[in-house]
């Protein structure tokens, strides 16, 4: 298991390198840069600025310095657009915000999605079942960027229950809507998937064996059926995390939470190489870590996979 974890972590290194190199050249070779503006700077000033950020050196040297700083000191360099701030500062300020509602969103997805799916499976073809199927279709058609405005319309503008944006140090009223708006469609996806796999598991021969043992229904569900029914859901969570990170950029902007999504988009407007690259690397690392954790969890649950590690 430890061996496997190490191997996986090592595999992340070339991937990140690839991401950095490709993005780096892509950005640098494209026309325009952080200091291009409508009124060009005098050449002397420009030269000065470029020197200050080390941009007068050849590209591969800059790339090398960039990578070296990340590896040795986890330093993503200075921001080009935000004066006197480093990319690390930007991350330190925004990342906890994104991570906070992201975490609660994941909790919402699992804590609501899994039981909903199980109930729908146990009450197959009942009111609950149809409600859930409806919800699943609904959420596939209303993505977060349509859902979020509707939520604000209802909960903020009409009923005045929740603030329509801001963060306020992560007070719970400010966390609810970002977390729910980000998670709803995945919650429905998880519910639908859990329902399907639970129905399948309940028809499995080994559940009949469990029934033949005289176990009460509750024990059968919790002890025998739950684990196998959750495995497909666990696999599904990998892509879900990737998509949730994408969605978080939208949430940061729409709800003005002050998370890194806002910095990312601002960075794109300002052509701030270091912010864009730094946040891209951060997003990528986040997905790798989450997927690795999921895979380990999967192996921990599924003895067949575990014995192969």
């Amino acid at each position, binding site marked *: 298991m430890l061996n496997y974890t190490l191997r996986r972590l090592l595999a992340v290194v070339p991937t990140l390198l690839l991401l950095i190199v490709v993005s780096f050249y892509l950005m640098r070779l494209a026309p325009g840069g952080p200091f291009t503006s409508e009124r060009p700077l005098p050449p002397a000033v420009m030269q000065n600025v470029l020197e200050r950020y080390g941009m007068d050196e050849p590209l591969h040297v800059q790339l090398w310095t960039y990578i070296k700083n990340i590896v040795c000191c986890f330093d993503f360099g200075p921001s080009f657009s935000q004066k006197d701030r480093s990319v690390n500062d930007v991350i330190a300020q925004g990342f906890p915000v994104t991570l906070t509602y992201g975490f609660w969103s994941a909790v919402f997805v699992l804590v609501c999605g899994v039981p909903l799916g199980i109930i729908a499976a146990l009450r197959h073809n009942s009111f609950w079942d149809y409600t859930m199927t409806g919800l699943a279709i609904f959420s596939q058609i209303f993505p977060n960027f349509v859902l979020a405005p509707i939520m604000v319309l209802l909960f903020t503008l009409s009923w005045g229950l929740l603030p329509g944006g801001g963060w306020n140090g992560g007070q719970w009223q400010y966390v609810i809507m970002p977390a729910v708006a980000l998670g709803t469609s995945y919650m429905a996806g998880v519910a639908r998937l859990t329902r399907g796999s639970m129905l399948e598991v309940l028809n499995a*021969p080994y559940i009949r*064996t469990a*029934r*033949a*043992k*005289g*176990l009460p229904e509750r024990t059968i569900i919790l002890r025998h059926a739950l684990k*196998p029914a959750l495995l497909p859901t666990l696999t599904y969570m990998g892509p879900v995390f990737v998509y949730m990170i994408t969605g978080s950029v939208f949430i940061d902007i729409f709800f003005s939470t002050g998370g890194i999504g806002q910095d990312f988009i601002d960075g794109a407007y300002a052509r701030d190489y270091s912010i864009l690259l730094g946040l891209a690397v951060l997003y990528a690392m986040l997905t790798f870590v989450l997927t690795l954790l999921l895979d380990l969890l999967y192996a921990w649950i599924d*003895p067949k996979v575990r*014995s192969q590690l």
Partner: protein
Amino acid sequence: MTGADPILSVKNLSIRFRTGDGMVYAVNDVSFDMHAGQRLAIVGESGSGKSQIALSILGLLARNAEVEGAALWKGRDLLAMPAAEINKIRAREIAMIFQDPMSALNPYMTIERQLSEVVELHEGMSRSQGRARALEVMDAVKIPDARARLRAYPHEFSGGMRQRIVIAMALMCRPALILADEPTTALDVTVQAQIMELLAEVQQAMGTAIVLITHDLGVVAGFCEDTLVLYGGRVMETAPTRALFRAPGHPYTRGLLRAVPNINDPSATLAAIPGSPPNQTHPPRACPFAPRCEDAVTACFETLPMLEPHAGTASRRACLRPVEALT
């Protein structure tokens, strides 16, 4: 058969399934008795409803099933029992061995857990007591190195070993009756013989009654003293196994026996029964075997033969044709 009261008495059991294509009449008016320690074989082709009989006794039928009749266990009707009551009988008094050991065991639980939960539930044992019983039973079914393998998962065992575990599971509470549904079908021929031998041994040692459900007359021959032949969900014939093999009383049984390879006379040709299994979307009004029966007369297509004793033997059969007339 012994003269004592039967432990299980199945009376006029009928099972039908509601499906998208209408009703399917899987089992029709089946009755039989089981005595303590008895070994009964229920023989039939796939689709003859033999597995459904076993499942209905333990209340394990699919949700779209409708059941009629009674299955009296110590005087109480299992078919009418509420879930909480029948749960106390499952595994403790009547246990089941399933067909496919590959899928009958939960792949996500250790063998120990799957075995010990039975006695923890029914006998209120602790984990360690449960483990001790599991070890004992695994030894009884001759699983080598049982102690070391308690913590293993099903996928770490071979098919034969898994079937031994399934048998061990059925033995955990020393039930009075075991329903064995095709226990060897999914296994290699050599392993089949070992498993049957094991079942016989365990049955002898514990005095358990066994209903062996199979399509394989060869398996029946050496194991069960009585045989019940099922076709189209109806009992065609029931007889002591020896008598049945010597002189089948029903054309269908005769056809079945001809289809079994004879090890003493490999040159004998095997005769398949022509035609295909019956359409069971209607309740039977005539002999279900008539369309495939070479001895059928007009009456066979019009009346439903009853199960009646014949020729002063212990056998009973449902056929309009006199035995003497059968070639």
